[in-house]
């Protein structure tokens, strides 16, 4: 049976992708951030997962306001890199995993998750920056990806609780999939950031730290954070953190934090990364 073996959560700041694409990762501004990504890359290279589920949000790239799905699962063979307004990122196309993606789509719908199924979907920095951060700059991404896109652009996004329940269902459904694929799940977005308005630039280190602490110890408590609390405490775009709950829900109740990195600033954002493995550790 297939299995979700670990989870990663990471911010997906577009400027991080630009820094990599332009070769600026060693500048004084970026070096401290990228230094912290090294251990995550080593961990992932050692884990060698067979596939990844990447929970992310689209930023007016694949979806416009014409049609705003809450949860979209990509079932295609490949996902092209989106042009978000300044040309597509120079990174490899993303290979899909239709067998598992369709299995998830079908089972989730029968399990009362009202998924949107995407047979075509360009993917933007929300998905590609986490790949870059954790895989570097290979000629091909090392594993196929199932994109799971969450609306956070039009209020309201799904609640943290709903996202957590989606993760729980994903855990079970992946476990029912024939074969022995070892799957890693990414939660992306966050941490605290506000891109808009007079309050732009808000960063709440304490909120972010408590959130990362809680993710291991008491994820159920975290699911009770309301949208207004995210926006008030962690900035209007900090609400992207709901996507981390999908990742956490897909892991076992007991997890071990194996790595954490937190750096301010990445452009307007507090960049966080955390790695969780199933089980309460050695």
């Amino acid at each position, binding site marked *: 049976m297939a299995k979700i073996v670990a989870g990663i959560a990471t911010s997906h700041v577009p400027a991080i992708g630009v820094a990599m694409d332009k070769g600026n990762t060693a500048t004084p501004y970026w070096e401290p951030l990228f230094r912290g990504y090294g251990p995550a890359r080593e961990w992932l290279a050692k884990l060698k997962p067979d596939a990844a589920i990447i929970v992310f949000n689209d*930023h*007016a790239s694949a979806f416009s*306001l014409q049609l705003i799905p809450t949860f979209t699962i990509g079932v295609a063979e490949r996902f092209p890199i989106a042009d978000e307004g300044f040309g597509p990122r120079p990174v490899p196309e993303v290979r899909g995993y239709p067998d598992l993606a369709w299995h998830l789509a079908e089972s989730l719908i029968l399990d009362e998750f009202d998924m949107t199924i995407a047979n075509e979907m360009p993917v933007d920095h929300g998905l590609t920056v986490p790949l870059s951060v954790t895989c570097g700059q290979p000629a091909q991404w090392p594993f196929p990806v199932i994109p799971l896109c969450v609306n956070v652009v039009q209020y309201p996004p799904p609640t943290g609780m709903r996202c957590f329940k989606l993760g729980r269902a994903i855990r079970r459904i992946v476990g029912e999939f024939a074969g022995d694929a070892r799957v890693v799940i990414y939660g992306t977005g966050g941490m605290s950031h*506000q891109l808009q308005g007079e309050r732009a630039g*808000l*960063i709440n280190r304490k909120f972010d730290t408590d959130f990362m602490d809680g993710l291991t110890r008491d994820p159920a408590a975290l699911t009770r954070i309301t949208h207004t609390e995210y*926006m*008030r405490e962690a900035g209007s775009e900090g609400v992207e953190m709901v996507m981390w709950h999908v990742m956490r829900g897909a892991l076992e109740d007991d997890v071990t934090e194996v790595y954490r990195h937190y750096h301010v*600033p990445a452009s307007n954002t507090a960049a966080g990364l955390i790695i969780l493995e199933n089980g309460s550790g050695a």
Partner: protein
Amino acid sequence: MSTPPDYESIPGTYVYDARRGRQGYQLNMFCMSLNKPENRARFKADPAAYLDGFSLSAEQRRTVLERDWLGMLRVGGNIYYTIKIAFCDGLTFQDVAGMMSGVPKDVYAKMMLAGGRSPDGNRFKPAPGGTDHG
């Protein structure tokens, strides 16, 4: 529907909710069109003529032509959309964030390097109905 949503008490923040979704639809769909390089070229070449292809209100049109980033949010702009205008101008998210918060670029950059804007004092509007317990 009758009581204002609780997030209205957050200062300097324009939550893209139903009200703004209805107000800003055309403005944001214009921004969406800038995902295509040929449209970016047309917009850069003749902004006013390009905007004629969209049903913007006069005030929405003004905010775009004058690059009034904060004004765009007030007439229904969504930052994930309006930033595409900034990309056309060669600006970054941080450039625009500085302009929206009304400080020079280097002042904003320094604030971010020093850990960002503190939530303390920035959680609630000062007006009746909210006090900051941050």
